């Protein structure tokens, strides 16, 4: 049992950044766990991806070329990954915590009897044993998890928690045949998110976002006016878009938009779920307005107002003369 195995995540031919973060995490753990650091690439055409993961502490890249892996398919990936784990017995298996790994990680952990934790943002090695930290109760507490009696551990890593590794390296690359496994689902098509209709969350320097605290659809229009009056782009959390109260193009977060160029983000009535934070946590000036003083959004905010968003909004309109 030694070494770290990372599963590369890619989509439509492009490596996902989260894989570079997993490689970064492996780099920091390699000394404590012992090498090697190995990246597994499963794809129809693994060569360009093998190149993209040849960075940092990576010692070896294993590629598995299969026509049925042209797109991610959990049952195919499960068979390949389990057979590589069975051959190599890594002490630690890492993959990004994302929609693809949701349907893969549990099957691999259960099948191989690995210790297992998801959405992990801290990993330590104590006396040779892996200890993982994640959050609970909508980010209000942290939870330390250990894996008694397990010789290998599988962790899925929260995006943005580990510095991505990009320094080029020259690992050995070996192509293998691994795993039988048959696809039990069939990819039909991709559908890109609908056109944004000119709403530009990624490009906006100033975003005012509303969440479920807005309460009622009838309250939404006044926030469009308020954002306009303040010179901000109106954003929202997922439930607001799911309800159809605002278009999906305004949704900030993991399954929506990244507030990439934002310098000031005012979050009103948003609790601060990890998926929402994914889209805005990096913003330098975050103002949180929430009636719950313990809402986790306050822990990432530079300024906080504990109060009613509708009351604050009304005052803002009054004082700015927005009608």
């Amino acid at each position, binding site marked *: 049992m030694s070494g770290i195995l990372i599963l590369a995540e890619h989509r439509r031919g492009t490596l996902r950044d989260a894989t570079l973060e997993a490689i970064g995490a492996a780099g920091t753990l390699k000394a404590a766990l012992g090498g090697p650091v190995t990246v597994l690439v499963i794809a129809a055409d693994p060569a360009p991806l093998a190149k993209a993961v040849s960075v940092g502490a990576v010692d070896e890249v294993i590629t598995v070329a299969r026509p049925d892996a042209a797109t991610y398919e*959990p049952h195919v990936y499960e068979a390949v990954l389990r057979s590589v784990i069975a051959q190599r017995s890594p002490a630690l298996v890492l993959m990004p915590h994302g929609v693809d790994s949701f349907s893969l990680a549990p099957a691999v952990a259960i099948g191989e009897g690995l210790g297992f934790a998801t959405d992990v943002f801290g990993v330590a090695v104590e006396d040779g044993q892996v200890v993982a930290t994640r959050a609970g109760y909508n980010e209000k507490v942290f939870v330390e998890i250990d894996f008694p009696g397990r010789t290998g551990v599988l962790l899925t890593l929260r995006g943005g928690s580990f510095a991505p590794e990009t320094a080029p390296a020259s690992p050995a690359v070996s192509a293998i045949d691994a795993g039988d496994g048959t696809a039990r*689902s069939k990819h039909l098509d991709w559908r890109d998110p609908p056109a944004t209709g000119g709403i530009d969350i990624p490009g906006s320097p100033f975003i005012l976002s509303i969440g479920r605290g807005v309460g009622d659809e009838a309250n939404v229009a006044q926030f469009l006016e308020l954002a306009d009056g303040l010179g901000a782009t109106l954003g929202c959390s997922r439930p607001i878009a799911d309800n159809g109260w605002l278009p999906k193009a305004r949704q900030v977060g993991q399954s*929506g938009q990244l507030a990439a160029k934002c310098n000031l983000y005012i979050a009103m009535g948003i609790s601060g779920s990890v998926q929402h934070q994914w889209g805005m946590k990096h913003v330098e000036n975050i103002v949180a307005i929430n009636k719950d003083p313990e809402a986790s959004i306050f822990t990432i905010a530079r300024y906080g107002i504990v109060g009613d968003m509708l009351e604050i909004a009304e005052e803002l309109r009054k004082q700015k003369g927005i009608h």
Partner: protein
Amino acid sequence: MKILVPVKRVASLDDEFELRDDGRDVDPDFCEFDLNEFDEYALEAAVQIKEAAPEGSVEVVVLTIGPDDADDVLRKALAKGADRAIRVDDAGLEEADRVAIARVIAKVAENEEPGLVLCGAQSADQGNAQTGMSVAALLGWTRAAVVSKLDFAPGAATAQVERELEGGLVECLDVETPAVLTIQLGINTPRYASLRSIKQANAKPIECLTPHDVGLSDAEIGAAGALSRVRRVFVPERGRGEIIAGTPSQQAARLLEIISEVNG
């Protein structure tokens, strides 16, 4: 055909909360409980399949694992269209992690033989996004996670689903059945329960079973069936920003100052 919908009673913490004496969880006295929001969507998806099928041909069974108090979420589900409710009592399930809970769900699925199991994509409190897909792995059934659209005619060999990925990208796919799917928020509009259906739900029986009743062996129950252990729960020392105090009018005035300071 049956559709099994495992539902979780999730906790939200009071403004002030304390940890349990052993420091490994929050003291439940400081929690408020409700049906996991994701499960409302999973249930609605199941009920819609039932309603589209010939009357009486589909039965929606809801299942929770938890203490007596968790009956509340089952009653809520019954009021919103579930036909039958099962609760597996949590006595003896101490130290159950997601995989250990999934073992219970998988056994119930083996007994009930549903054509679909619809779980929530994740829970609102712990949010591991692990339980439903663990159930699929234990059953050896087809699986798909974070399903945002589902077309399935009872008895069909495949279901047409859409998975919502990062950035709002959607993958359309066919999945073989029987399958376990985890359902994403927004897949449908969950119905409200009418007063009449709430009354009827309160009169319905809830089947209460133990982990042994459903067929689990000691080696699968609680810690023995788990792949992880909580060592410690703690409230992190985290920087808190400057809290703007005062009346709403003063708070708004300060906020306008901050906006002009930052935007220059």
